[in-house]
């Protein structure tokens, strides 16, 4: 949770249907403070999450399933969710989603990673491939781990370096990798992605 006023405050605020009693004077002070922002709450930073996501880990969400609404402000890439849902179907769906959220919140958050195989090509058959590999491995980025590598014959005495790496999806992009490696322009002609998979 953030220290400044943000959507998490609103999420909790909305879960309460009346001000806290005066016994909880800190909570009441907070409640009144948030109440004063009533008009601006629509344009707050952050992404609102189900209530269970706030507060201590490993506590199941005991609030009703309505917290798991569809966020209609999303870029609607596919549009037209126009199927008519009966109230019953909707209730069942939301119940299942709530179950899923509860289960999910107990699992440790997985960091999405990809395994990328790069082809790094030299300029000619005289490029020092050892040095080329050294250059590539000297690239250090947060969320990047170099794996094994091998030299693959191309033809006419030219070899390319095939090198594996594992990246955290949110931290390392293929353009970044390509730019950084081709910056060793004395030995690198080009970089291609040979394989790209989920880990």
């Amino acid at each position, binding site marked *: 949770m953030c220290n400044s006023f943000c959507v998490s405050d609103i999420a909790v605020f909305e879960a309460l249907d009346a001000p806290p009693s005066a016994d909880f004077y800190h909570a009441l002070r907070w409640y009144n403070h948030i109440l004063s922002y009533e008009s601006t709450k629509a344009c707050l930073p952050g992404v609102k999450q189900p209530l269970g996501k706030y507060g201590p880990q490993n506590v199941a969400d005991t609030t009703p399933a309505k917290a798991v609404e569809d966020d209609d402000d999303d870029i609607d*890439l596919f549009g037209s969710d126009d199927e008519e849902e009966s109230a019953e179907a909707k209730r069942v769906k939301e119940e299942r989603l709530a179950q*899923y959220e509860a289960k999910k919140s107990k699992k440790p958050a997985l960091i999405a990673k990809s395994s990328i*195989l790069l082809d790094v090509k030299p300029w000619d*058959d005289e490029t020092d491939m050892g040095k080329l590999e050294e250059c590539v491995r000297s690239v250090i980025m947060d969320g990047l781990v170099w794996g*094994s590598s091998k030299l693959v014959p191309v033809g006419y*005495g030219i070899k390319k370096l095939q090198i594996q790496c594992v990246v955290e999806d949110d931290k390392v992009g293929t353009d970044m990798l390509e730019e950084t490696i081709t910056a060793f322009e004395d030995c690198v002609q080009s970089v291609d*992605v*040979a*394989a790209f998979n989920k880990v």
Partner: protein
Amino acid sequence: MGKEKTHINLVIIGHVDSGKSTTTGHLIYKCGGIERRSIEKLEQAAVQIGKGSFKYAWVLDKLKAERERGITIDISLWKFQTQRYYFTIIDAPGHRDFIKNMLTGTSQADVALLVVSAAPGEFEAGISRSGQTREHALLAFTLGVKQLLVCVNKMDVTQPPYSQRRFEEVLRNVTVYIRKIGYDVGRVPFIPISGWNGENMLTPSPRMPWFKGWKIKRREGHVNGQTLLEVLDSILPPGRSLNKPLRLPLQDVYKIGGIGTVPVGRVETGVLKPGNMVTFAPVNLTAEVKSIEMHHEPVAEAFPGFNVGFNIKNVSVKAIRRGNVAGNCRNDPPTETNCFTAQIIVLNHPGYIKVGYSPVVDCHTAHITCRLSEFKERLDRRSGQKLEDNPVVLKSGDAATVKFVPIKPLCVETFFEYPPLGRFAARDLKQTVAVGVIKSVDKTSSAKKLIQKPVKVF
């Protein structure tokens, strides 16, 4: 050549919790895609520590851990074979750069396998609006991956296990969803499986006797069967790009002492042979191919999919470069593209795109800035029907027909004639802002004068 099995790239899409990696792993494991020695080693270890009955799961976890550390290169190129095909698997990551790679990279998909989870709640979450599944499925469709297979996974954990009702519920929902994307649902087979236990994967499952089999209704004849393996064997092979004129986008150009200039690239369509006269576009140079090599071995004929180097006469290494395209000078040689018209889908663009916007276009091995010079029509994404003439702005989610003008010489082709040279990603702000397929190309450049009518070779 004729006797060899056709090669198919299979992209696997699905929500993070769909169990697609387990399913993929199981398939590869059973179909001999993992080196026997590594498996034996792991299986022995599994028995030793008493994991006998959870052998597969344990081995798959081990392989995943190995993959995560990037130790074995062979694991990153997952392959297996069925009776008719060799498959290379692309387990689609959620990474934002993956889309661009699927469009321009070496492993463009021929068939998509959508994995959805039947587990309570997981199906509902997986198909929700924000899921990557929608994006991947839409892109696969837009980019010409017309064959789609659906696995309803985790049938072992439905309530009750292997529930026919749940399978039918999921099937109904997914059908609506893929019809909206544009797929002809009659051609899409659905198979209830358990990737974890291997039910209905290689052999019909005794736990789902209610399952009467999958069906594909298509012009080329209807097919049906029971298992995932049978579905994979029944897909239609990709079009024979072999009979088309040669197109070979250059990846690199080498200067080799005693040999001369050696361009390297992958044959996308047609055949390259020593003695051919090839034209390079957009630079418009023609040269004779003296010899061809692949993996340091001489090659007499290079077919689609071959990554080759070839030696050419009288062309300086400086005269041609990455992004150029080689073709046969006597059979529809490639030329410079003045401008081209494409159908695009705008993705991830934070604001509005107007005429004059100039992103970098990645198409085959070329990266060239192109100016969007005219918005012809805004379209319905699914039907391709016109919604509006000459729209003023385009935003994320819009589909449109747009004219592009390259600011530097470029050679691209229509998707219809040369698919790998006719799909592209447009990048700006370090992300893919649009993807597209090229509908028409204006080649009326000065280069045209030098070229006679295409002459039929043979």
